Every structure is written in structure tokens, then in C-alpha cells.
């Protein structure tokens, strides 16, 4: 492979700076001691972080988002495992269709889905229901966990299951002791990806949440449109930190580059 010239490297550096800029600025501004959105030049302060933790609405919505993420990611992953196995282990005519159906939420704009679910929720009086909100998140994040389960399944040597059968294991034992352990990196990676996708989601959630179920991104969006102060910056910085922790876990368990580029 040829080397990259200095022009290319300069270009890349600019791109990197561009991609990092908003995240860095948010983290910097979060430490400002003043009331305005300025980079702290006279010293840092943790007052806005304290303000975040004291802000009951923000904290409530954080816990909402956390529980929502845990529950919907778990449901999505639980449902993705058999679906992923069905698509990769069996030869049947509708296989391609099924794969397309399960990945279809990816091409439906979250806006449209939000609006559609709002309509359904209003008809069945589900607007304040946490359970229904979780299911709304599930449909959006299934493609993420499913993709990783499928990639993991494709990457395993199917002969291992035959070997286990030949050694006398029942089909359930094969599933429990051979299939699932081999798929575990994909399953956990899928879970984490689904979790963070649910945690971050804002567009659909704006339509579908009710005052009692408001999620953190929605709360932050509403706050940001009404007032601009460093409280928002501190909350954002904390979110970046939270995301970084999840990314670290994702990298350890599965490999961040594999997850982002597309489970290969």
C-alpha cells in the first residue's frame, strides 16, 4: 500500500478535528464557572454538574432512559437470537424476505415511526405506559442486535454442533453448551449496541413519551430549545462520559471497530 502524503494527513487531521469538535466543546463548556456558554478560561467549576444531579427532572429522565434501555435491549436481544438463528441456520425460500423485514426499521424514519406509534398509542390508551414505550424502542433497536447475532452465527463453524450431536448431546444441550457460548460475543455486543441506541434515541421518543415517561435525550432537547445555559452542557458531558463507558465495554466484549463497520 502506498503511503499517504502530507496533504492527505493534513486533510485527515482536519476531518478528525471536525468530528471531535462538538463533543470536546461540550465537555469544556460543562466546566465553566460562569452562566454563559463559554469555554472556562478563568478556572474550572463543577457547579453545573452539581446542578445536573440536583435537577429532579433531568435525574428522573435519566433513570427512565436507563431502565428503558436495559429492558428494551434485553427484549430485542432475546427476540433476535431465535430470529437470527432462523435466518442463518435454515434454508427456506422466505429467508431473504424475513431478513429484510427485520432490518426494515432502519429505513423507516424515526419521525414517521414516532408519529405512527403516537396514533396507535392514543387509540389504545397507552400513552403513559412504560411497557408500550419499551416496545416502541424494541422495534427500533432490533436491527442492531439482530445484525450482530447474524454476523456471529455466520462466523461460527456449524460443524461444532454436529460434533456435539455425534458425541451424544441432545439438541437442547447442543444449544445450551455449544451454540450459545459461541454466539455470546455477538449477543453481548448486540445487546450493548441496542442499549446505547435506545438510550440515545430522541426523534421517535419525542412523540411517544408522556410527561411521566420522558427520556433523558427528550428532556435535554426540550431544555435546549427553551434555555441555553451550561446546565445543558454539563448534562451533555455526562452523556458523553456514559457513552464512552458503554463503548469501552463494547470494545472489550466484541470489538468496537467490528460493531461500527458492520459485524464482519
Amino acid at each position, binding site marked *: 500500500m502506498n503511503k499517504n502524503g502530507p496533504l492527505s494527513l493534513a486533510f485527515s487531521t482536519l476531518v478528525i478535528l471536525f468530528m471531535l469538535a462538538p463533543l470536546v466543546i461540550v465537555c469544556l463548556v460543562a466546566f465553566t464557572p460562569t452562566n454563559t456558554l463559554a469555554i472556562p478560561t478563568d478556572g474550572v467549576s463543577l457547579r453545573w454538574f452539581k446542578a445536573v444531579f440536583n435537577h429532579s427532572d433531568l435525574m428522573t429522565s435519566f433513570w427512565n432512559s436507563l431502565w428503558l434501555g436495559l429492558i428494551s435491549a434485553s427484549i430485542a436481544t432475546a427476540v433476535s437470537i431465535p430470529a437470527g438463528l432462523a435466518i442463518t441456520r435454515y434454508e427456506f425460500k422466505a429467508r431473504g424476505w424475513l431478513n429484510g423485514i427485520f432490518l426494515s426499521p432502519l429505513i423507516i424514519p424515526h419521525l414517521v415511526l414516532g408519529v405512527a406509534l403516537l396514533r396507535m398509542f392514543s387509540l389504545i390508551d397507552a400513552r403513559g405506559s412504560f411497557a408500550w414505550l419499551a416496545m416502541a424502542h424494541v422495534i427500533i433497536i432490533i436491527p442492531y442486535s439482530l445484525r450482530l447475532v447474524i454476523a456471529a452465527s455466520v462466523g461460527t463453524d456449524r*460443524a461444532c454442533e*454436529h*460434533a*456435539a*450431536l*455425534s*458425541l*451424544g448431546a441432545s439438541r437442547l444441550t447442543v444449544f445450551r453448551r*455449544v451454540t450459545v457460548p459461541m454466539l455470546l460475543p455477538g449477543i453481548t455486543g448486540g445487546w450493548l449496541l441496542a442499549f446505547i441506541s435506545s438510550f440515545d434515541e430522541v426523534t421517535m421518543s419525542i412523540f411517544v413519551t408522556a410527561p411521566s415517561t420522558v427520556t433523558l435525550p427528550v428532556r435535554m432537547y426540550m431544555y435546549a430549545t427553551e434555555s441555553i445555559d451550561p446546565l445543558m452542557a454539563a448534562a451533555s458531558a455526562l452523556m458523553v462520559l456514559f457513552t464512552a463507558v458503554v463503548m469501552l465495554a463494547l470494545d472489550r466484549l466484541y470489538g468496537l471497530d467490528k460493531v461500527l463497520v458492520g459485524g464482519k
Partner: protein
Amino acid sequence: MSFLSLQGVTKFYDQICVVSDFNLDVQKGEFVSLLGPSGCGKTTTLQMVAGFADITAGDIWLDGVNITHSKPNTRGLGIVFQSYALFPHMTVQANVRFGLEMRRMPRHEQDKRIRAMLDMVHLLAFADRFPRELSGGQRQRVALARALVIEPPILLLDEPLSNLDAKLREEMQFELRKIQKTLGTTTIMVTHDQSEAMSISDRVVVMEAGKITQIDSPYALYEKPQTAFISKFVGKANLLKGQAQQQGTGWIVNFGALCLPAELSGIESNDKVVLSLRPEKISLVEAGMGYLQGTVTQVFFFGDRWLFHLDTPLGELIVAGTNVGVNEVQEGKVFGLTWQTHTMQQLKECQAI
């Protein structure tokens, strides 16, 4: 009563016949190879014995029990898969232990057997390693240990050596045979490599397009191939075409350039015949002597032997010679060719391949 018996085993995938009327009786302790080019049905046959492929027609009997429709996890056979299929999340020891766990063997008994088996494949020091930390040859031996530790009635090997490099493959061939003889396990091996099949099998089953074409000991298979395909697949062969003519109680074949006596059967006078002649059966003598003359066109050196291509009135003939030190056969030189007429093997098909 044979130990393993395949009777009329046939397999169809939709309308396509993949294995047709496969009949084989294997004795206890025998090492049988299924040999043939890819697509000949040998792997499918193995999968039917293992229970991973449905049988369309026919029966499989193991030690007096009809296992034709038994589930693969009830047959208790030892299988070494082509990719080895080691459980990646388990150590070597755990891999080998798995089959014994399924049989609910007491733990101390398991440990004893595992230790003995790992020792036999020289992997005792690697017991706590994971498959990804092992070389190809080591993984293969783990797969073998896992299959044999359960003391199966039959050992099935699916191209067990194809993923190894040439030198390792040779070593493992002999290792495999040694272990098999020590344990006395009846073994069926599938391979496309004829030297592999020949060197370690008691009998070789040659398959072509789903059918058995010849079952014989390696020596008989080599010396007396039944068809042109087999004669070229197993070793090299010169195919000589001629017309048979009765002479007294024997036969003479008119090859055009010359006539030679031959041992023939099942034909009538003036029938066309094809005879197979192995390169190492031909000797090069002084020009002017021998049955016919040939000019050397190419010379190949293989270390322990030479291969010569000669242009003769019978077409191009290949002659093999052991490396005895000095070689006088060079391109352009003319030599006489001679051989013992009984080494010409009559082939069943009359068309040359």
C-alpha cells in the same frame, strides 16, 4: 457377519441422485477409505453413516442393529470433521471430555480416559490450552482424541489431513494408522488424495458420480485398475488402444505399430480394447532393442525418481525410473522400450479418457 454393512444406500437431493446403490461390508478393525474426486458422493455417504444426511433408500447396519434412521446423537460414532470443529470456547481437555460427559461417566473415570488419550496423541502438556492457541496439526490431534476417547464402534474421518501441509500430512498419516491399529477401531476415511488412501487403508472404495467403481486392497487397486478413470486417478497410466485378435487359446492385441500378447477376458475377436500400462513397469533399453523405439521429449526429476516423456509410434508414453545415481536419459536421445506383457491391465471401458 460384517461389523458395518451398507446395503443399497441411495441418496437423492430433489431429483438429483448423489449416491446410488452403495453396497459395502466392513469388518471389525478394518481401515477403509472412500476415494474419489470432489462431487463423487463420498462425503454424502459418510454423512449418511453419521446420521447428518437422510437416506433416500437402503439400510445401514452396525453390529447387528439397523441404524438407518437413528438420530445422530444416538449412534455413538466417533467423527473427525474436516474443519475439526473443536469447541472454541472450551479447552483441549474440555473438548475431549464432552463426549464422556454426555455418557454420564463418573468424573474420575473421565479423567483417566482423557489423560490416556491425550498422552496417546502427544498433547498431554496442552490440556488447558484453547483451540485458537494450537497449530493445525495439534487441533487435528485434539479432534481425533475427542472422537476416540468415547471408544466408538466406528471412527469416521472426513478428509482429516487435507488442511495440513504436505510434510505434516505424511507424518500424520502414519500416526493415524498406528493409533487405529493400537486401538483396533473400525475406521472409514473419506479422501480425494489417492496416496493418502493407498498408504494406510486395508481396502479402498473408489467412487465416481455417486457409484462405487472398484473395491480392492490398495495393491490390487493399483496393479489392476478396472477403468481408465481409476487407472489415471490412482497413480499414472499409459493408455494403449488396440484391436484384440484371437490366437489359439490366448490373445494378441494389434496396436497398429506393433502386436503384443495380452491377458484378456470377456471380449470377442476384433473387439477394440484399452490397456493400462504403469510408467514404472516400462524399462528403457538400448536403441534398436525392445518392443518399440521412443525419443525423449521431457525429463522431470522428483528426487527419488525420474519421469520421462517419450514420443513413440504408440503416441506419448510416460516412463518412470528410480534414481539409482547416474542418469543417462536426456532430451533428444532415442531409447528402446520394453515391459512384461502381463503388466498391461485390461480396462472395462473401451473409450479412452
